């Protein structure tokens, strides 16, 4: 017995020793197993930088479905009837005088999506700056020009949502975000960021060191990407009312006066696909679905006879009714979940070009409009030639050519004509802008 106790005391001593050893051992910091952490930016390889660059284009599409739906509904272009969420026919249309919710997903998610793109581009710029791998100057300018252009485009859409609430344009340091700047100042910042990007792209040689999707076919070299950059710049200048600026910029873009319906659509696009891991077109809905995206009844009512843009909508088998609203037409702009969505079409550049001539050269504006009319099966413009007449005509084509691409509401707002948008139910109202997201303290 005594021997056993002695043996056991020995075991006990050993155990205590073991405890001391185990207690002092370090627990290793675990690598995050599900993906690279932000730390990759500190010492990124060429391959890492190419991956982050591709991520920027991927993010460019992020939450854009909400952007198109919400701006289209407020702009009285479309309705979305769904059993799952009553807000689409509720507060977005200002039902009963209701306001938009600062926490409403329809406003916060597209806003956050734009800034996620900007963040990815900032990380790209930081990674490039800190990388120990070798890059040629041309490669570096390619990356910075690409990043700045897409940041500027994203800021522009954020400004479209927030309008007079202003936006932050300096968001490099998440712990020290820049102040909100007023809408017009934001446009100036965007314009200058575009110019920086353009300057970089001009020195970026003949190819990018990363891949762009086929959505950017024709715009996937620094030279052609620069055209896209200038197209966006023309849009910004138009929003600013800088018509001279528009005309001096637009020729460096992919602007091309044409009446060929296919060439009207030239321009970079958001790529969509049903392939695994990719994103599908968020605006596409199957015709005659029970949860349909339908055209506002005025779309067909106001359309000129013979205008082939009737093809953007299709007559439903039965009328869609929801919440006191109804429509006979589905929105069929896109044919499938794999259809691309245009970012800036030649058609829009032509309309920008025409609008920039209103008041100075209405004839040139009308000539341009007639190219578009002809492309859509309409006879030449025979209306009045006053500035207001021509502007109305341009607005008509902006409405139908850019249908549900996020323009109608923005156009009516910048032209102070929101009160002309139809009110479908008593006490509905047209919102001027999205409230500043609840996450953004002043």
């Amino acid at each position, binding site marked *: 017995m005594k021997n056993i106790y002695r043996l056991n*005391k020995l075991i*006990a001593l050993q155990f205590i020793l073991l405890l001391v050893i185990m207690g002092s051992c370090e627990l290793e910091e675990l690598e995050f197993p599900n993906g690279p952490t932000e730390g990759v930016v500190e010492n990124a390889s060429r391959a890492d930088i190419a991956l982050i660059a591709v991520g920027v284009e991927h993010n460019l599409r992020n939450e854009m479905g909400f952007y198109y739906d919400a701006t289209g509904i407020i702009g009285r272009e479309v309705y979305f009837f769904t059993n799952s969420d009553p807000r689409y026919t509720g507060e977005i249309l200002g039902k009963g005088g209701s306001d938009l919710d600062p926490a409403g997903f329809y406003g916060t998610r597209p806003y956050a999506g734009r800034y996620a793109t900007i963040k990815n581009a900032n990380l790209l710029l930081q990674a490039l700056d800190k990388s120990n791998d070798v890059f040629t100057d041309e490669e570096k300018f390619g990356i910075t020009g690409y990043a700045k252009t897409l940041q500027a485009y994203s800021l522009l859409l954020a400004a479209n949502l927030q309008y007079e609430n202003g936006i932050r344009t300096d968001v490099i340091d*998440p712990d020290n975000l820049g102040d909100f700047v007023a809408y017009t100042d934001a446009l100036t910042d965007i314009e200058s960021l575009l110019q920086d990007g353009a300057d970089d792209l001009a020195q970026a040689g003949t190819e990018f060191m990363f891949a762009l999707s086929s959505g950017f076919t024709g715009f996937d070299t620094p030279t052609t990407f620069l055209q896209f950059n200038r197209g966006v710049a023309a849009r910004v200048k138009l929003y600013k009312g800088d018509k001279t600026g528009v005309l001096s910029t637009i020729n460096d873009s992919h602007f091309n006066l044409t009446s060929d319906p296919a060439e009207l659509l030239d321009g970079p696009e958001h790529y969509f696909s049903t392939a695994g891991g990719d994103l599908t077109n968020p605006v596409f809905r199957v015709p005659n679905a029970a949860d349909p995206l339908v055209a506002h009844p005025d779309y067909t009512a106001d359309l000129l006879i013979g205008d082939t843009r009737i093809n953007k909508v299709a007559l439903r088998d039965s009328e869609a009714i929801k919440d006191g609203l109804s429509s006979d037409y589905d929105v069929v702009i896109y044919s499938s979940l794999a259809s691309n969505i245009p970012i800036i079409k030649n058609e829009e550049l032509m309309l920008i070009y025409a609008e920039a001539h209103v008041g100075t050269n209405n004839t040139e504006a009308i000539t341009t409009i007639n190219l578009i009319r002809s492309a859509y099966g309409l006879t030449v413009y025979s209306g009045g030639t006053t500035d207001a007449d021509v502007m109305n005509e341009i607005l008509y084509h902006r409405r139908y050519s850019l249908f549900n691409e996020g323009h109608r509401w923005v156009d009516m707002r910048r032209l102070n004509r929101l009160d002309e948008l139809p009110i479908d139910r008593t006490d509905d109202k047209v919102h001027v802008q999205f409230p500043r997201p609840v996450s953004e303290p002043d």
Partner: protein
Amino acid sequence: MKHFLLKASLLLMSFMMALTVYAQDRTVSGTVTDLTTSEPLAGVNVIIKGTSTGTITDINGTYSVELKASQNVLTFTFIGFVKQDITLSPSQTTVDVIMEEDVTSLSEVVITGLATSVKRSNLANSVESIDAKSLVGITEQPTMDNALYGKVKGANITSNSGAPGGGISIKLRGLTSINGANQPLFIIDGVYVDNSEISAGLNVVSAASGGGSQSNQDNPSNRIADLNPYDIQSLEVLKGASAAAIYGSRASSGVVVITTKKGKNGRTSVNFSQNIGITTQLNKLGQRTWDADKAETHFGANGRAAFIDAESQGKLHDYEKELYGEQGLLLTTNLSVSGGDEKTTFYTAVTRKKDEGIVKNTGYDKTSVRLNLTHDITDWLNIEATTNYISSSADRGFFNNDNSGTTMGISYVGTPVFAQLFADAEGNYPDNPYAASNFLQTRDLVTNNEAVNRIIVGTKISARLFKTDKMSLRLIARAGLDNYNLATTAIFPNTLQFQKNGNGLNGVSIQGNTVNKNTNFNAFLVHDFFPNQSLSFRTQFGITAENFDQNTILGTASNLNGSQTNLDQAGNQQIDQNRIIQKDRGFFAQEEVNYEDKIIGTLGIRGDKSSNNGDANKMYYYPKGSMALNLHNFNFWSVDFMNQLKLRVAYGEAGNFATFGDKYTFFNNAIIDGTPGWVINNKRGNGNVGPERQSETEFGFDMSFLSNKLKFDVTYYIQNITDLLLTADVPNSSGFTRQVTNAAELQNKGIEIGLNWNIINTSKFNWNFNTNFWKNQGKITKLNVPSFTTGGFADFLGQFRIKEGRSPSEIVGIGPADQQDEDGLVVYGDSEADFNMSFTNSFTYKNFELSFLFHWKKGGDNINLTQLLSDFSGTSYDYDKIDLDPEGQLGNGDFRQASFLNTTAPFVEDAGYFRMREIGLFYNIPRTALKDLADIRIGFTGNNLINSFKYRSYDPEVSNFGGKGLSSGVEVTPFPSSKRYNFHINVSF
């Protein structure tokens, strides 16, 4: 030498005690030995019952005591051993007693620590112990957690839906975390058991996270449901940090310690039981009475025509009956064999369970096999092994919120009775013109299955390293493994209305595979020291290591090739992988002091570090201390009718980890046009994230009257939770949308009262009555971020608000300006109950037993969106009833729609209920009637047979978002809950 001193003092003590005994009629003597070691036990108290006089055993375990003629009962007590009363025959002068270690007597011993247990009468905490009889004795239980309803004071248990196979959330003493898990830690025979809810990836079809809410609404079951309630010998619920501090950083939501059955030395016993039952929908709602005008109002001219056609052809259908009206068959078979000899015992059991649901093609099928062994290698070395294999399969249907209109729940509420959804003779289902899905087709063709293969193994080695007459040192080492494979299979064939012809993705097959492996290793030294017969010390020191590794691979294929469902038989595939790895290391030390069972004090500390914390090597410390005062054991105690009065106070701290990954900012893989890229995740990592810390102080008293026939206990607790983790919104312009931070403090205060009264106890008739009352009130005491709303869909649909000075479960919404507070919101309720009460009555009359358990939840509100969604299609059952509109003008359906976007008031409803949770009537066939061959017990039982509530839906007990965080009590077209009727037969040999 020192032995001599001890011997001398013991002898002296005995002598002095003996002197206090009066004139004697006889002397009784004997030896007391330990059952497991057969060695003599020194220091055992030998008391003459009914007096305070007696003696203690000496070093050889012998004693001698003098009794008067009128005295004939001796009580033997020794810490850690079962108390024994020995009645002497008039002439008896020798009594040798064998004392048994107090491990089986569950009402007496409570397992509160990692290695040791405490006599309940010495416990300083309110710890609930549930034994096998109250777990599964009244009625058959669908899952283990289901069996706890109403039986644990302070536990709020909510069934997330009625889908077979579980999905239950347990909250102990209110909300203890807003962000992280509120679920207690489950430990079974020393094994840390995983209780994950793992999503089956249904979002690709339901798009539930596509709109306002980004959380998981897949309605998965929680993995604790795998456990077989029949194997459980006892279950202890440590409700807060004061009791659970020794479990450290995982224990702030409480700990449920489960001990499974072990064999006993002696005759082999065989027990067979069979349950047969049915389950039906608990509460049918029906649909409003339609007419042609109403049909036109809601569905236009086509609606009118459809109604007129359907009515004239007698084709108005009760789709509720069609969808939820199945009478599911419930079958449970259990066979257990246990026994053993002096060295080895065993318990083995097989349980087969096959439950059908109230929706066709749903059900739960489980096989559980258990083998528990104990073996004494030598007199000082014992090993114990517990092994449990579980194979289960749950078909859960397709319910809850979506943004695609496709779940059965959503499409059901969108469909009026005049819709024609039945398949034709060839099996072709017509499209549902009123919703995105023909739910009958969905029911018949969709698969949503969770299949689990799980093995839980625990090993325990106990060694008594040395033992002297004053002290002993034991080593207890434990290793545990919980390893399971969960296969989720969700198949949406391309013939479905919402998958064919370009609707949806032309068929989706989602196959998930999760491998979960938890291992834990603990080793403890327990040192018991008895310097004299009135004092004892127990010192423990231990180290713990827990490793968690969960790897989920989810394959999603769409554009399926015809009826093929393999992932490779499809046009598009996507693979997602998510790994969760965590390593925790810790130690603990504890000192217990017991003075004559009169004053029992404990001090302890646990230290923990974890790879989940911002700094993996930072040690977090959790102290505890407690004291119990057994006034009835003091000499001055002379209250005859009251045989126990214990005052107790306990303090402890415990933690709760941040969710895995909260400390990292990381890139997700993203593919565009076949090229992979990296996109930054929208959650910003927080390198400083640490565990939440709960400090709890608990006060209480236990009283017993009338020879323990009436027991009464009251506990009051205050919990302060600091470093509360919040998923705070961050300015979206940073490129991130959220970040987890330790940014708030929460306080819970509550009271728990228990009363147990054995009202009648005769040889023929026994009536036992038990009632529990519990109430908790939570308050956010500090908030470092602006107040925010969360846990629902949008403010106007009702959300929970986190705001300093307010209850964390407060429900707010929009409303009239004059009712708005400074946030512009109106408070409409609180999901926390005003109080809960449960009442259990057990009657035994001859061979009959009748037991029933009522549960009353007073108050507590839900956000009920099912009726609103129904209103939009005019299908709600109370659409035309007028009892909501204060002006008595509008029907409820119109009133709710008119309120929509103006006020949230009608969507927040009282979710209180009064229900008979369990009832069981049994008859025990006398053994004599069966020639002593077997005991046979037969009975009829039921769950949820009586229900009373005002709530306007299937059941106020519901959760769209599963068991996580705040969000219980949000309802969106769930799988309706059910009631169960069972017939039982139990045979034991």
